């Protein structure tokens, strides 16, 4: 089955060149090897689903990509050229990777536009905020996303789903290449999960590359072009969505650990 899947992977036709590649990534926490020799290509314009059980290495992988943690070994390539990922800010600005965290942490006391531009403020006269410029740009992006969120509203007034949209809007605002979503349906109500999937599809239509990390296998299968399965710190399968089912994914996730239909 896995050979099957990887064969299809190789013959994949729809996706573009690798925008981000990782090679032989290793991350240890003490005696635990959380990421064990992981290699993966993220192709331009695709929605890449990443699934796996708790502790399989998804979150660690994510924290390495976002620059929060640093790998013990391995390398990153961005458009084919080797890069260092040193900090979340550098990841965003230089590599164009926007991270949408599971907890959707924002500054509730600040307005939507202030949160959107936080850390990358537009200035005028050197030292001052270009408040008007930022607010109107924020309004534009929110309108493009077909939301009714007010640019001037305090974030404390927003629902979980709306916060998610704001976090995604940040990626569009700064025209990032890659948008990573960590468990995007975790912090919002089940009823809103479809909205998230809709957002992911529209990101893809805009030519964005999306990395979707999720527990909810149905959600992943609903939007992903390819799905990478983590188990025990390794990637046990990378397969085109076509032909995948929840059962197959579960088997990959747990079968590997039980002793191995896959290598």
């Amino acid at each position, binding site marked *: 089955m896995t050979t099957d899947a990887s064969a299809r992977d190789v013959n994949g036709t729809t996706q573009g060149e690798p925008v981000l590649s990782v090679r032989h990534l290793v991350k240890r926490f003490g005696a635990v090897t959380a990421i064990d020799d992981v290699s993966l290509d993220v192709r331009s314009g695709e929605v890449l689903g990443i699934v796996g059980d708790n502790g399989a290495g998804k979150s660690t992988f994510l924290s390495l990509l976002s620059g929060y943690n640093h790998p013990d070994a391995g390398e990153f390539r961005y458009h084919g050229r080797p890069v260092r990922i040193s*900090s*979340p*800010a550098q990841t*965003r*600005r230089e590599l164009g990777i926007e*991270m949408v*965290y599971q907890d959707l*942490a*924002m*500054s*509730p*006391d*600040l307005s939507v536009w*202030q*949160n959107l531009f*936080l*850390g*990358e*403020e537009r*200035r005028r006269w050197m*030292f*001052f*905020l270009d*408040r008007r410029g930022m607010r109107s740009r924020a309004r534009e992006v929110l309108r493009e996303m077909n939301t009714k969120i007010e640019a001037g509203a305090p974030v404390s007034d927003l629902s979980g789903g709306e916060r998610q949209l704001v976090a995604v809007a940040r990626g569009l605002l700064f025209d990032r290449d890659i948008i990573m979503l960590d468990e995007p349906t975790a912090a919002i109500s089940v009823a809103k999960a479809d909205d998230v999937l809709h957002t992911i599809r529209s990101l893809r239509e805009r030519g964005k590359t999306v990395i979707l990390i999720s527990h909810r296998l149905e959600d992943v299968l609903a939007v992903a072009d390819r799905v990478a399965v983590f188990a025990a710190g390794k990637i046990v399968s990378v397969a085109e969505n076509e032909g995948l089912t929840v059962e197959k994914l579960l088997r990959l996730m747990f079968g590997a650990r039980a002793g191995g239909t896959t290598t």
Partner: protein
Amino acid sequence: MRVSTRATGGPAGGSGPGGTAGPAGTLQGTGAGPSAAVTSLRRLWHVMVGREGDVRRPIAFLILGVIVATIITPDFIRPSNIDSLLVDNSYLLVIAVGEAFVIMVGSIDLGVESMLVSAGMLIAWLTVFHGMPSGLAVVVTLAAAVVIGLLVGLLVAKVHIPSFVVTLGVYWGFRGVALLVNNQQGISPAGSRPFGFEGIAGSTGGVSNLLIIALAVVIVAQVVMSLTPFGLWLKSIGSNELAARRAGIRADTVKISVFAISAFLAALAGIMYTAWAGTIVPSAVEGYSLEAIAAVILGGIPFTGGRGTAVGAALGALMVAIINDLIVLLGVPSLWEYIFVAAVLIVAGLQARAGRLVK
């Protein structure tokens, strides 16, 4: 005026048992009257208890304070009293603004009064004992304070000692330093050796320089807080430090700078105080750290930071000043000052909670 007629009309109609012809007629006649009165009362209530950090709240409280003070003693509103109230509390405004920066990021600075008095002792020592030119002495004093503030900030942001602990150390330590400077004695200008910076307490065009300095500090601080990226970073850290760090804000650097700002303004206040008092003693301004903190809270910046204004903190300082002034005007023993400030602070805390409940 419309509000007052409706306010009197409303409750009268409402409390009228059974509804005689008279009140019923008035009710019909005024039409939307009572509901409009309710609306405006509700609006006022919302301002009073509304979103923390809204500058309209300290403004409303200050106006209320002035009205109450005037009712208690009409002497309060006399121009000469208002003038001396503003001038005598100019240095409290300055330290309250410094404290506002620290509380905005969710930290606290208990040491401002000790920084104030040490700075006063230092500048007096430099000018009176060593004949240093006053301009240079001002620069040296402010620079020394900034260095101390940076060290405090480093201990808080990099060594991760809670700001409460570090600045409690500053509070005790710099009282000690103030005592050390002149062997526990104060310093006054001698005939041949003046301070040289008394002009700071003079006036320009009939307006006290102290007040001008304090207003300039408030305005600059407010501009920094609401119009610059640094102001946004301050609020983001107080609001959600994790989110701020993820957005790439150098939270440690920002935290270190707020302690430097607070120390700088405390030293500036120390120079102002020394010029104003014409002398400096190591035991001066006892309790002012807590008054500055009270001012900030009254001014609408929550203890956890994230929102509020420098203007609010300054208005809060004026509220504290009004209480102190009333104590003097009424000839009440000054112990009541502490108890009044406590009561007002608790009320401020209560209405902040009420604001959250209403929301």
